[in-house]
């Protein structure tokens, strides 16, 4: 009797049960717009150690850069979040030093150039398992340099979602057009030479507490092929002029640490340190600190400072210091011993209802920085980021 009553109640329940209506927003199964960023910047530099003229001469250069990247999102049948990214950048630069590739011309074709660099990316995140797969391809075109790149990566969150490990492998297959200085040119038929870069990047991020998180990063980078720049001159101590000649292999290991801490309710401390070493004898230390201060929930000001210090590569010597006994030689002051300071500030505005009456334009950030090197080079950069959502 008892069994009959229980069965009857169960049957009654089954026939009258109704599924709860899903009032939550479902994940979009169609491809939907997620975010777009427009970044524009103006860069200007000057100095007196141009590599094109053997370590002396003007380094005046300006660069106007514009990039746009668009991200679309789609959830698949297994509820995995697929992100598709497309970006394209265009740089227009003018260079007084590149103009000196031809010493006789008042102004040559090399005084200005454009660089275009589109890229595609994809990632698939399985939120329940805490795993993400990613892949991407990229290209870059300018008059004397073409590049084709690809990358794949994987990340795994820890069981409590407090940590995440990421591994990424990147490969770049580049072609350098061999444009020699005018006095070293046999003819106007420029050949090309290959340069390949393979990089393994590992990172581990960890949430320490509600206000603090850190990330450890490390790369192992192997470069092979033509690693010099063909239009860089090197003057020996006998006043003879040569093309820059560097080894055809380079192995680099940079290791970095990031730490972000929310101090109180209004100040954030963003610190970064990197140690770098390679088999060309170059070692460097980088330290930066940025302190965003929230003036209001929608506006923040971020002063920043970056210190960088490097030793010279064993192949560097200044103007007319190299000898005929050197197998490899460069007078490029970017590979010399120096330290640098980069400081400035940014302002970030992200009101709730959008900017300038446009609801989708939800963030504007402007940032200015001044950069000085101990070898006499100075530069300024101003950048603007508009975000649409």
């Amino acid at each position, binding site marked *: 009797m008892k069994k009959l009553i229980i069965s009857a109640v169960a049957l009654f329940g089954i026939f009258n049960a109704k599924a709860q209506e899903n009032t939550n927003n479902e994940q979009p199964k169609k491809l939907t717009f997620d975010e777009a960023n427009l970044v524009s910047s103006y860069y200007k530099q000057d100095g007196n150690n141009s590599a094109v003229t053997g370590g002396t001469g003007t380094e005046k250069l300006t660069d106007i850069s514009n990039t746009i990247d668009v991200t679309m999102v789609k959830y698949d049948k297994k509820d995995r979040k697929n992100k598709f990214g497309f970006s394209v950048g265009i740089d227009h630069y003018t260079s007084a030093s590149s103009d000196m590739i031809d010493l006789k011309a008042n102004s040559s074709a090399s005084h200005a150039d454009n660089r275009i660099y589109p890229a595609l990316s994809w990632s698939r995140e399985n939120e329940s398992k805490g795993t993400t797969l990613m892949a991407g391809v990229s290209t870059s075109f300018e008059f004397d340099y073409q590049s084709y790149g690809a990358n794949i990566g994987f990340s795994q969150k820890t069981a409590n979602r407090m940590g995440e490990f990421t591994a990424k492998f990147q490969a770049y297959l580049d072609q350098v057009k061999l444009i020699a200085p005018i006095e070293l040119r046999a003819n106007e038929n420029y050949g090309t030479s290959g340069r390949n870069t393979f990089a393994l990047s590992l990172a581990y991020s960890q949430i320490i507490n509600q206000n603090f998180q850190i990330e450890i990063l490390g790369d192992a980078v192997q*470069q092979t092929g033509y690693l010099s720049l063909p239009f860089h001159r090197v003057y020996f101590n006998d006043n003879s002029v040569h093309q820059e000649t560097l080894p055809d292999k380079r192995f680099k290991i940079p290791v970095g640490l990031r730490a972000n801490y929310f101090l109180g309710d209004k100040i954030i401390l963003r610190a970064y340190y990197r140690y770098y070493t390679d088999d060309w004898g170059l070692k460097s230390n980088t330290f930066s600190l940025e302190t965003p201060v929230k003036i209001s929930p929608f506006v923040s000001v971020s002063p920043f400072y970056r210190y960088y210090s490097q030793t010279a590569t064993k192949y560097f010597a200044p103007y007319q210091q190299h000898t005929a006994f050197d197998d490899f030689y460069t007078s490029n002051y970017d590979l010399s011993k120096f330290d640098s300071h980069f400081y400035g500030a940014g302002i970030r505005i992200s009101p709730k209802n959008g900017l300038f009456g446009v609801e989708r334009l939800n963030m504007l950030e402007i940032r200015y920085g001044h950069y000085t090197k101990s070898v006499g080079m100075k530069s300024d950069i101003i*950048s603007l980021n508009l975000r649409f959502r």
Partner: protein
Amino acid sequence: MKNLIKNSQKLIKYLFGQLRTSFINFEKTFVFASFMSSTPACHSELVEESVQAGLRRFSALNYRMIAILSILTIPFLNSCTTVKEYEKNKLNDAEMVLGNRPVEKTELSFQSYREGSSGANAGKVGGGCGCN
């Protein structure tokens, strides 16, 4: 949970035991080497051999100590309490992101051109441009 605590305690005791043994051996090696070098009757080859042995042992101990210290720091990377999703409002702030913001893109680019080093910042690693 009880097993986790028991196993963690056993691991910590083992690691400290290893550290203690390392320090004792380190001390013994130096005492032996200094005794040998101070004894006039000792053959110079024997002294050199013992110093070399001491140095090898020191290197091995050093690596072992570094490995042990590294392992000891791992538990500190995991916080004592898990931060729940509703407590992550500060961590999820746009300026707390562990990475480069889009506005910093061009700065990273000019730094990779004007400096000899690059990488370990989720930016350029050296390829894709005529940079370093």
